[in-house]
């Protein structure tokens, strides 16, 4: 079915043309007098290998094997050890790991049964990215066309608490878009349509002209009126087309099928689109979700044939599994490195420095460790200087609730929340990250 609100999405009203729509920020106009700040949250599933991931607390000197791809960003990195997702209640560990990760609140009782524990429903509150989106969209100076964009990579097509981490509110999951072509269309579809349209309107008029010569004079009036209208539309569109983007629309290879084995290509396409959409200030908040909690991606491009979730259940002493999980997590780190590199290579529009100076990238996971399903020591790795945290550090918060970190993120945007998610875990306030 065609999207019902197609024209409304394009901003059509009786008085204005749809292809002219778009907030000024679509064209990258810089709001004066305020420092632009962005947030990207990247998620990968099924826990990490703590021994290969966490360094000692203190200044970041040497990185563990998983993080080798990020070596050159060491000074701009911050690792937050010892944060726990303390949320209890309904749902199995993976469900709560996923759906409470960014919401910090319990799941509603429901009908989705996992491998253990009680069945559950959706999370009972908003996620931090959406909270910040709402905060930024309220102010004209920080408002963008989309407010937030939810990217996915190889996310299975199912709507359940294992597959959603973004929530617009209680019981309101937001689905990621894992098709780069669909995302491209969301970002640039109307501009492409406009170009196609401009390309034919002149010919439509020629056609009308030819016809008008052949019909009786009484009937010519309609065709002539029609011709005038086409001409007016053509002029309007041409005028609108003269406005330029700060960054040109990215060119995607049009032949990538959305299948498991193309995940590496899809991942890069999505990151290209993500950075591009931020460079053109279409959004300042984005999430990037790889697969899903309990995801069974078969990463054949890493010569791993087994499903990811199955591997993550293997005991520590299974060396083969450990080695494969190391490969998998190192690959994820490499993807993060690509994203960070791209941000650092792109000059900040209208300001000094690179986009990475204005962006906070977070890499996280629903579990601390795959085979124990622990919610302690959830991986939280920060790259980039958007939030103004003191970087080049590894802190150990010794079991502090992760709600406090979510609050810290809000405060870094000037959104000084007293609590976020379940209040009982927020008593000690934001983390000392200055």
């Amino acid at each position, binding site marked *: *079915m*065609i*999207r*019902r*609100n*197609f*024209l409304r999405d*394009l901003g*059509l009203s*009786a008085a204005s*043309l*749809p292809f002219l729509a778009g907030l000024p920020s679509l064209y990258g106009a810089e709001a004066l007098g305020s420092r632009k700040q962005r947030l990207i949250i990247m998620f990968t599933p099924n826990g990490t290998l703590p021994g290969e991931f966490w360094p000692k607390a203190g200044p970041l000197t040497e990185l563990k094997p998983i993080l080798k791809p990020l070596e050159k960003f060491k000074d701009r990195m911050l690792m937050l050890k010892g944060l726990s997702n303390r949320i209890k209640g309904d749902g199995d560990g993976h469900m709560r790991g996923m759906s409470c990760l960014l919401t910090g609140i319990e799941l*509603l*009782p*429901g*009908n*989705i*049964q*996992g*491998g253990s524990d*009680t*069945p559950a*429903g*959706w999370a009972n509150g908003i996620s931090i990215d959406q909270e910040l989106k709402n905060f930024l969209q309220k102010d004209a100076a920080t408002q963008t066309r989309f407010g937030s964009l939810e990217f996915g990579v190889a996310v299975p*097509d*199912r*709507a*359940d*608490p294992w597959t959603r981490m973004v929530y617009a509110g209680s*019981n309101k999951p937001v*689905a990621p878009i894992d098709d780069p072509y669909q995302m491209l269309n969301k970002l640039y*579809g109307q501009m492409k*349509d406009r170009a*196609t*349209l401009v*390309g*034919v309107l002149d*010919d*439509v008029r*020629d*056609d*009308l002209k030819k*016809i008008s010569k052949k*019909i*009786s*004079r*009484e*009937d010519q*009036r*309609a*065709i*002539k*009126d*029609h011709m*005038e*209208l*086409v001409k*007016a*539309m053509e002029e309007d569109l041409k005028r609108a087309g003269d406005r330029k983007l700060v960054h040109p629309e990215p060119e995607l290879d*049009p032949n990538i099928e959305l299948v498991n084995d193309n995940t590496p290509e899809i991942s890069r396409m999505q990151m290209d689109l993500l950075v591009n959409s931020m460079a053109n200030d279409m959004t300042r908040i984005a999430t990037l979700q790889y697969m899903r909690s309990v995801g069974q991606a078969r990463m054949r491009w890493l010569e791993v044939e087994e499903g990811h979730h199955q591997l993550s259940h293997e005991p520590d002493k299974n060396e083969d599994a450990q080695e494969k999980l190391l490969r998998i997590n190192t690959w994820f780190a490499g993807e993060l490195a690509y994203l960070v590199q791209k941000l650092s290579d792109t000059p900040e529009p209208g300001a000094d420095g690179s986009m990475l100076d204005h962006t906070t990238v977070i890499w996280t996971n629903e579990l601390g460790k795959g085979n124990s399903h622990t919610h302690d020591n959830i991986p939280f790795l920060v790259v980039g200087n958007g939030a103004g945290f003191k970087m080049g550090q590894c802190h150990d918060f010794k079991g502090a609730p992760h709600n406090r970190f979510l609050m810290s993120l809000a405060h870094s945007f000037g959104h000084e929340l007293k609590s976020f998610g379940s209040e009982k875990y927020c008593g000690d306030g934001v983390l000392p990250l200055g």
Partner: protein
Amino acid sequence: MRSATVLLLLVLASFSVSCGKRSKATSGSSGEVIYAEQCASCHGAKGEGVDEEYDEPLWGNKSPESLARYIHKSMPEDDEEAVVDEDAEAVAQYVYDAFYSPAAQARNSPPRVELLRLTNNQYRQSMTDLIGSLGPQTRIGTERGLKGRYHNSEKMAKEKDFIGERVDRLLDFDFGKGVPMENMTQQGFSIRWTGSLIAPESGEYDIRLRTHNGALLQLNSFGGGGDEDAFIDAYVSTNNELQEKSRKIFLLGGRAYPLHLQYFSYQEKVSSIHLEWKLPHGVWEAIPHEFLSPQGAAPVTLVQANFSADDRSRGFERGSAISKEWQEATTFAAVEIVNHVVANLEQLGRQRKKNYKEAGDLRKLCMEIAERAFRRPLDGEQKAFFIDSRFEGAKDVESAAKQSLLLILTSPRFLYPGLADNEGAPDGDTIASRLALTLWDSLPDEELCKAAREGTLQSTGQVAAQARRLLEDPRARIKTREFFQEWLAMDEREDLGKDGKLYPGFDQRIVADLRGSLETFVEEVVWSEQSDYRELLTADYLYLNPRLAEFYGGPVPDGEPYAKVAAPDGMRSGIFTHPYLLAANAYHDNTSPIHRGVFLSRNVLGRLLKPPPEAVAFKNEEFDPTLTMREKVTELTKKDTCMQCHRVINPIGFSLESYDAVGRYRTTDNKKPINTVSDYVNDQDEQIRVESARDLAKLAVESEAAHRAFITHLFHHLTKQSTEAYGGEALDLLRGTFVDSGYNMQNLIVEIATVAALHHEEDEAVALSTPTP
């Protein structure tokens, strides 16, 4: 406006020179005489132009003063002094009044078949059928309900053990603490329903899921059936609470839309699932089984863009307004459809998108779409313009195809169906195009195109036979249904709500039932073998469901949604007394003989009523409270000027006073016995005594004016053109065959379609430029 001015300047600038035979005008002559003497030899006796002299006709929108100045200065071309000053003014005024001005043009030009654009409805239908023609055609069988597959679940395995399969009439289940089928476990079970939804009319539908558990609905999905293209996602439940999720969708009537519903209950005390809708004029209800089919259907391409309403100034929708809103809406709809086609080639019945890398395949597709859209094969020049020029040298075939399709779908050849007509006697393609538009509001199907190609769509017999075939299609049924909604003014009063104290129980549910009853009645009559128009007027029965039977009295039927039952009061006569129409043409707290009388005399009896000379409002509180409604209306309209029309209106209304504001039979009004007797004045100025609805029906059955009104309304609805455009005698001929056929309405529709399809008028432009002998 500007274009007309340009044309005028052109006309004036090229007044031609060629004869020097003229002498000076006789000063002081009338404009007509001067024109005949000085101007007609070049411009023609009626300004139509003369070949070899000045062949452009004289028409435009300059003022008489401006024309006079021009004539004074420059006319006649070979002797500018011949017509000056007051002579120029006189001739200008004459030219202006006689044929130059737009008003004169309208007066002089005989009614003709106008070039009209597609109406909004025709546009939607044509686009849907155009894209639908690319893939397999859905034919829905007679079986009704949805096919359900029942499973027990275990943990994450929703379909662990297959228990059974059955066709469910309705999805309106409260399982409570029980299970849907024997051998199912209350602990966890799932049901998957498949089939299609049949839309009975075009409009905005509300679709709703209500469940205590999890359910996911796909409707008309072009996607792969995953969660992402769910129409309603209620998959995850909370606390076993009742979830209620609804969504709107615009559907075209007479078509089937694929439907797929997954439902499951897991460790929940209470289980329920309801699939409900609210029709464009309805109330919430479980989707009745006659609109569900266990058979699948191909997804239907629908135009979702908003259009502003079509012109209705002549009492029926027609595509005459070429506005900015319309031009934008059609352009954006074309963009929307082109993107949709290119993105969904596979779902539309074509090869996988991958295989379309070859330009040839896409070219072929564009060609196919163009021929359908333009309603005839393309000539060489058109093929080069619409197709080849887009693909030649294009670096990306998909963009080339998009350009080509956009050009085709915004072309006037698609938007103005009359442009498909050939010159001279209509050929097969012209006939096919007209038949499909008249009967379906859409494009010819494969069979019509084939008949046109093979030359078997020429004789009156062949054309009528095709018209009969088209009439069997659901699209013709829908168009006919829309005609009756229009003729019976069913949508003019959106709110039939009545005073709850006076008419307890007459709620929205009853109003929706009444509408269903009236539509059922009309359809049963129209699609019966006799299809007898007189039956519509005289039927002594009603279609009732249990709720209506209870409200209006009479035996309570069971079984079908509406059953034909003898009228409870024995006093009914077809549409004259159908409670829906009686209630629609009444006040919220009383009857209205005037509303009933005006509606019936105009639409059904075919009387011409002028607008009232003075506006008089009916103010109930200003009358003596002991009066009956009849007495109040008599008092209100007693003036002679009123009675010019009310001598027609009032008797009709008074004869229906035995039916109250909700259409129930009654014998008293305001505690006085009802008097229904009065003298109606017919169009021959004869007085006829009427005292009941039966008498009114008799009047209509015997009245030529009533027949003409019915035929004219139907003709307008089908063709969007005036009957006069088809020759002065067209209406009489149609009435003749109508009467001879035993007032067969299906036959009449076929006749109208045939007349319109075979119509051939002399090319007016040619006729006008022919020199007067």
